[in-house]
C-alpha cells in the first residue's frame, strides 16, 4: 500500500531487504554491464535473502553463483571492473572479508591511485555485519573501521530502507570501489521509499531527528536503537539531535560540526569494539578541531573489547544496548 508523498511522488513502505533488491534490479535493468556474484546468490536468492528473483529475471551470466572463494570473488570483481563491467559482489558475512583482505586493501583500494588514475574500479562489495543474533564471534563483527583506515575505499553503512536504496544506486553508478555494509538486524526494518528514481550522494549525513541538547552520531543498526529511545529521552527533558553519517568514507564532518556548535555536547554510538572504532575517530576529530565548542567530554558507546560471545546474556552484555546509550547521553548532560 502506498501513499502520495509531499513532492507528489508515490511512496511505499518496504523493507531494507526489498530496498536493496530493488536498487540492484533497477540498475541491472538499466545497464547490461551491471552483474552480481557471490556464494548462493542465484536460484537460492542468497543466504541473506536479498537477491531473490534476480536469477529468473537476468539469467546465469549476470547472476552468478561463485565457488567458495572469497579472495577470488573480490579479485574477480576487481578484474571485471577494470574492463567495462560493473560487478556487485556479495560477501555473505562481514567476518569473511578476512579471507579476501589482500584483494580489498592492496588491490581494490590502491589500483586507481597506484596507476595515477589509468585504471578505474567501478565495483560494489556488499556485505552483512553486526550482532544481536547469537551468531557467535566469527559471524557478528562490525569491521568498518578497518576499511575507513585504508584510503581508497568508499565505505557506506546505511540504516533505513530509503538510505539503502538511494545509496546502493549511487554506489553502483559510481566509478570507485565501494564497500556497502548491511546489518543483519536491519533487513526486515520497514520504511518509506519513493517508487521513482532517486540517488543519495556520498558524504552527506542525514539528520534523522533535530534536537537542541545533545548531538548523537550513530551508524547502521545503532541509528535505530537511538531513534527508538529519542521520545523517551525527550519526555525526560533531553532533546537529542540524531545524525546518521550514512557514508563513513567520505565522512560528512560539516554536518556533525554544525550540530555540535548548536548543542555543545556529543555522544557517538557504534556497534564495533570501542578501541580504534569509527566512533572514537569522530570523537577524536571533534576534540581536535572544535574543543572550545564542547561543554562536556565527548562520550563514545561501542562493544566491549572481547570477541562477540554466543550466549544471549553474554552477547547482550558485550554489545551496546539501550541502557548504555542512555547512560552516556545523560552523563554528557550532567556537565
Amino acid at each position: 500500500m502506498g501513499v502520495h508523498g509531499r513532492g507528489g511522488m508515490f511512496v511505499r513502505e518496504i523493507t531494507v531487504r526489498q530496498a536493496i533488491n530493488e536498487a540492484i534490479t533497477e540498475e541491472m535493468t538499466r545497464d547490461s554491464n551491471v552483474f552480481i556474484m557471490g556464494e548462493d546468490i542465484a536460484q537460492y536468492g542468497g543466504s541473506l535473502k536479498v537477491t531473490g528473483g534476480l536469477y529468473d529475471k537476468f539469467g546465469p551470466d549476470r547472476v552468478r553463483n561463485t565457488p567458495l572463494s572469497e579472495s577470488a570473488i573480490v579479485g574477480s570483481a576487481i578484474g571485471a571492473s577494470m574492463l567495462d563491467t560493473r560487478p556487485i559482489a556479495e560477501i555473505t558475512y562481514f567476518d569473511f572479508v578476512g579471507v579476501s583482505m589482500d584483494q580489498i586493501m592492496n588491490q581494490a583500494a590502491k589500483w586507481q591511485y597506484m596507476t595515477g588514475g589509468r585504471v578505474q574500479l567501478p565495483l560494489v562489495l556488499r556485505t552483512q555485519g553486526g550482532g544481536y543474533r547469537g551468531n557467535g564471534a566469527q559471524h557478528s563483527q562490525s569491521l568498518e573501521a578497518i576499511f575507513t583506515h585504508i584510503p581508497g575505499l568508499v565505505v557506506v553503512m546505511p540504516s533505513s530502507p530509503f538510505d539503502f536504496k538511494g545509496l546502493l544506486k549511487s554506489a553502483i553508478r559510481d566509478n570507485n570501489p565501494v564497500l556497502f555494509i548491511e546489518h543483519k538486524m536491519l533487513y526486515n526494518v520497514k520504511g518509506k521509499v519513493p517508487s521513482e528514481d532517486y540517488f543519495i550522494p556520498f558524504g552527506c549525513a542525514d539528520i534523522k531527528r533535530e534536537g537542541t541538547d545533545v548531538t548523537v552520531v550513530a551508524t547502521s543498526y545503532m541509528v535505530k536503537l537511538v531513534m527508538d529511545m529519542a521520545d523517551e529521552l525527550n519526555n525526560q527533558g533531553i532533546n537529542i539531535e540524531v545524525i546518521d553519517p550514512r557514508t563513513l568514507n567520505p565522512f560528512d564532518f560539516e554536518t556533525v560540526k554544525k550540530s555540535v556548535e548548536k548543542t555543545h555536547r556529543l555522544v557517538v554510538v557504534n556497534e564495533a569494539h570501542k578501541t580504534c572504532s569509527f566512533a572514537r575517530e569522530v570523537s577524536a576529530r571533534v576534540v581536535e578541531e572544535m574543543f572550545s565548542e564542547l561543554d562536556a567530554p565527548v562520550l563514545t558507546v561501542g562493544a566491549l573489547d572481547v570477541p562477540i560471545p554466543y550466549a544471549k546474556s553474554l552477547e547482550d552484555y558485550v554489545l551496546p544496548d539501550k541502557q548504555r546509550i542512555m547512560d552516556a547521553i545523560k552523563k554528557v548532560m550532567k556537565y
Partner: protein
Amino acid sequence: MEKNITTETYCNLYRSMKNIRYFEEAIQTLYKKNEIRGSAHLYIGEEAIAAGICETLDKEDYILSTHRGHGHSIGKGLDPKYMMAELLGKEHGYCKGKGGSMHIGDSKEGILCSNGIVGGGMPISVGAALSVKLHKKDNVIICFFGDGAVCQGNFHESMNMAAVWKLPIIFVCENNQWAISTNTKDTVAAKDVADLAKAYGMKSVIIDGNDILKVYETALEMRDEVIKNQGPVFIEAKTYRLSGHYAGDSEIYRTKEEILEAWKDEPIIRFEEWIANNRPELIEKFKEIEQECRLEIDEAVKFALEDSDPPVSTALEDVFTYGSAWERRDVCERNYGKTGN
C-alpha cells in the same frame, strides 16, 4: 623450431627481447647510482617469455603482470620512456610517479596491473576474463606469475574459478626456479607446476622458456585453443633468473657456477645463434635492431633523468574519481520531495 614465422615477426621478437634486456641493464646501472628507490626486480634471462607471448596478442588482449614486470610491460608495447620515468619516480611516468617499478598499470595500453603482492593479480585476471566473456569478445587475458605464486591460495582459487567458469585466460607460470632465496623444489609439492593445472582440467604444457620461437608458437596455439574451446589453459615456461632477486641482491643462496652455467642458456644469444644458422640473411637486420634498441633505452634514461619530480599536490589526487555521487545534495527522508530531489 621454425614454422611459418615471418621476417617481421623474427624482428619483433628480437626487438622486444633486446629492449627488455637493455632496459633492465639500464635499471641496474641507475640502481647502483641510487637513482632508483625501493627495489627493482630484473627480468634478465626471462625475456623470451614476455616477448614471445606478447607478440601473439591483440590490442584488446590484456595482460596482468608481477613484481618482476618490466618485461611484460615493454613486451606489451608500453613506451620505455614513460616506464623509465615511472621507475625514477618522475612526473611523466606512467603512473605519475605514484606506482614505481612494481605497479605499472594502464587499461588503455592493455596492462591491467603489475603486482607487488605475489599471486595478487591472479584473481583479478579471472575477473578480467569474465568481462571478456560477458562481452562475448574473441580476446584472451594473460596472467603472468612466478613459481613462488603457485604456493598462494590465490593461485588455486583463481585456477579453479577460471576453470569452472570456462574463462579465456592463459595462465603463464614463469618458473625461474627461485623465489627470492628459496628453490622451487623446496616449496612446490608437484613435480612440475603444470601438473597442478591438470587437476583443474586445463590443457597444460611445459616449455623451454628460453626458446623464443617455442614460446611464440606455443602462445599462438594456446591463444587459438582458448578462443576456440572457451576455457583457460596453462603454460609452464621453464627459465632461470639470471640476476639477483632484485638489483643489489647478495645472492649468497646460490653458487657462481650455477649462474654462469645458466648464462650459457640465455634466450637472446640462443636466438642470435639460431638466426645465424637458419636465417643468416637477417644477421645484418638484427644488428640494426640492436643499435635502435640501445638508442631507444639511452633516450629513455635521458628523458627520465631530465623529467621533473611530481608536484607534491598530486599526492592527494587519484585516490577516488569524482562523479555525480560526490556532489553535495540534501537527499533525505525527512525532506524528500521538498528540495526537488
